[in-house]
């Protein structure tokens, strides 16, 4: 594994705000006091992804993992902070450099049906982008598509079909072929196997592993399923309410999680080898990202919470080589 960073995130923040509608603004003139609500979907994330690495990004709903994935894939511009691709600042990229970044970082979505144009044939879904990017002359697009279909395990006779003529697993294969068509370096997979049945999910996970070695890819694998992440990832990033709470090599994390939230999450994953266990769940609900708790976001549910956790945000600190955790308990 080489160690050169392919992607680097520094203090990435992504906020979404609602705008007040006309009625609310008028009522505000009369002193109603409506306020625009802001969600801090991603709240200051630092992360380095090395070339050739498989990074798993884990968290529960509303933790900002999908938003972060979209920022990395260039779909959302960050509100604040900087994203570097191969050492250069993405925000400063223009023209051909920008086009190259867009091509090199591709995304695969959870629901292949809503990410494939239902009125386009497979041929165009896969073959359009490489022609636009000038990778393949239009005259050779058909042969190029056939080759990609074979790479993802589909028959080339499917080229003329429309997305609705495929099963969920096949559609996901088309989505993967579409991403691969522009010869990317990084695949950002957002819950790419979550919607599939277990037996089909295993087929797609194997396909991801094959493609990685065949095309020398770097993966960011976003998932709520710790089993999938454990299987595939070399390093795991755990998020809670917009912040990273722990980063660790997969084996070490599963052996000995550091952050109390990471520990709770691992403890509660149902596993085939845990039979009729007595659940000892962590208490409480996920707080709303509209109004996250002060200090450490996890403190209202944390069994180890101290006074300090209620007021002071714990920084993400290095606790061992290649291990990072954001918890005041590590200060001794």
């Amino acid at each position, binding site marked *: 594994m080489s160690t050169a960073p392919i992607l680097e995130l520094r203090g990435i923040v992504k906020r979404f705000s609602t705008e007040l509608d006309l009625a609310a603004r008028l009522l505000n003139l009369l002193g109603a006091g409506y306020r625009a609500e802001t969600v801090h979907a991603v709240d200051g994330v630092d992360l380095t992804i090395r070339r050739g690495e498989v990074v798993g990004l884990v968290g529960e709903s509303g933790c900002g993992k999908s938003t972060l994935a979209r920022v990395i894939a260039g779909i959302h511009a960050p509100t604040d902070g900087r994203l570097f691709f191969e050492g250069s600042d993405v925000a400063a990229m223009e023209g051909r450099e920008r086009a190259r970044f867009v091509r090199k970082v591709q995304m695969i979505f959870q629901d292949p049906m809503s990410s494939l144009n239902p009125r386009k044939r497979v041929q165009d879904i896969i073959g359009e982008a490489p022609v636009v990017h000038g990778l393949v002359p239009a005259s050779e697009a058909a042969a190029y598509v056939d080759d990609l279909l074979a790479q993802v395990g589909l028959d080339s006779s499917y080229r003329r079909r429309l997305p609705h003529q495929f099963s969920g697993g096949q559609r996901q294969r088309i989505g993967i072929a579409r991403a691969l068509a522009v010869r990317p370096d990084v695949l950002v997979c957002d819950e790419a196997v979550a919607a599939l049945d*277990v037996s089909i999910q295993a087929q797609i996970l194997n396909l991801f592993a094959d493609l990685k070695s065949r095309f020398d890819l770097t993966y960011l694998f976003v998932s709520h399923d710790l089993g999938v992440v*454990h*299987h595939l990832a070399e390093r795991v990033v755990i998020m809670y309410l917009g912040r990273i709470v722990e980063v660790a090599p997969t084996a070490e994390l599963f052996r000995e999680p550091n952050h109390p939230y990471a520990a709770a999450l691992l403890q*509660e994953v149902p*596993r085939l080898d845990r039979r*009729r266990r007595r659940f000892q769940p962590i208490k409480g609900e996920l707080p709303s990202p509209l109004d996250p708790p002060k200090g450490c976001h996890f403190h209202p549910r944390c069994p180890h919470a101290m006074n300090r956790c209620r007021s002071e945000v714990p920084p993400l600190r290095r606790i061992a080589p290649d291990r990072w955790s954001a918890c005041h308990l590590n200060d001794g």
Partner: protein
Amino acid sequence: MSIPALEVDDLQTHFLTRAGVAKAVNGVSFRVERGEILGLVGESGSGKTVTGFSILGLVDPPGQVVGGTVRVGGDVVSGLDDRAMARIRGKRVSMIFQDPMMTLNPVLRIDTQMIETIRAHETISVTAARARAREALALVGIAAPDERLLAYPHQLSGGMRQRVAIATAMLNRPEVIIADEPTTALDVTIQAQILYEVQELCRRFGTALVWITHDLSVVASLADRIAVMYAGRIVEEGPVDDVLDRPLHPYTRGLIDSVPQPGLRGGRLVPIPGMAPALVGLGEGCAFRARCARASMACASQPALRELRPGQRARCVHPLTVGSHAA
């Protein structure tokens, strides 16, 4: 032997479509004892949900229950008219859905709905019913139940709504609860809380629970017994440990091998080749044979569900026996 809480015998539910008849449930039989948790497992289209709906008489056209008997505590509840069925539903058998908004009416307060559920089945004052609703909410781990009773469903989080749905299902102390993927849409930490509450309640009140899911891992941690469905039939059934550690049916084996497991990190998963067959026009014989490595000519006729180990039954001509795991 005591009378089981739920006994399903040769249940048949067909969907009459333009393309032909889809036998979504094709001769399903099982029994669940008092206080027992049965995990009914299968992939999309296996018929697991339709089985649950058929038990409660909730199948809508073009679906139709065309055969079989369902007994609750020994009494036949299949083939009843709507009024008789309404007396069973919510009283002796309850259902928890994947989406709690299927249970909850969005424009009524929680207390209105829960009190109505109690008063539909017995003559009791509103005050007494309200006290019981409050108690039921506290039982499923809802903090401040008095406030929650006054809330509307949209004011609650997803996990909280599912708790209210479970509390409502438990209100009349039913003998049987059918739960259809109730934690699939929830986060891991919330799922763990709900699995915990449900387990507690079944043990405490002796409620028989049928937990319908696609997720083998959830069933492993929750259930006493497992029934695996494929293309409308139960293909294997037995105690959790036997089915997961020593599966007899190649499909069960395939499902288990498809789940990423801690010991096999980074290794290759062994997926089941191909995909589930269409139910319309599904011919005779084992429906899994096209995807099965052990299939032979003999599989062209439908195998019976046979007891191959004590308590463990499988519908297979070439079952995996001890020592032949690698098939």
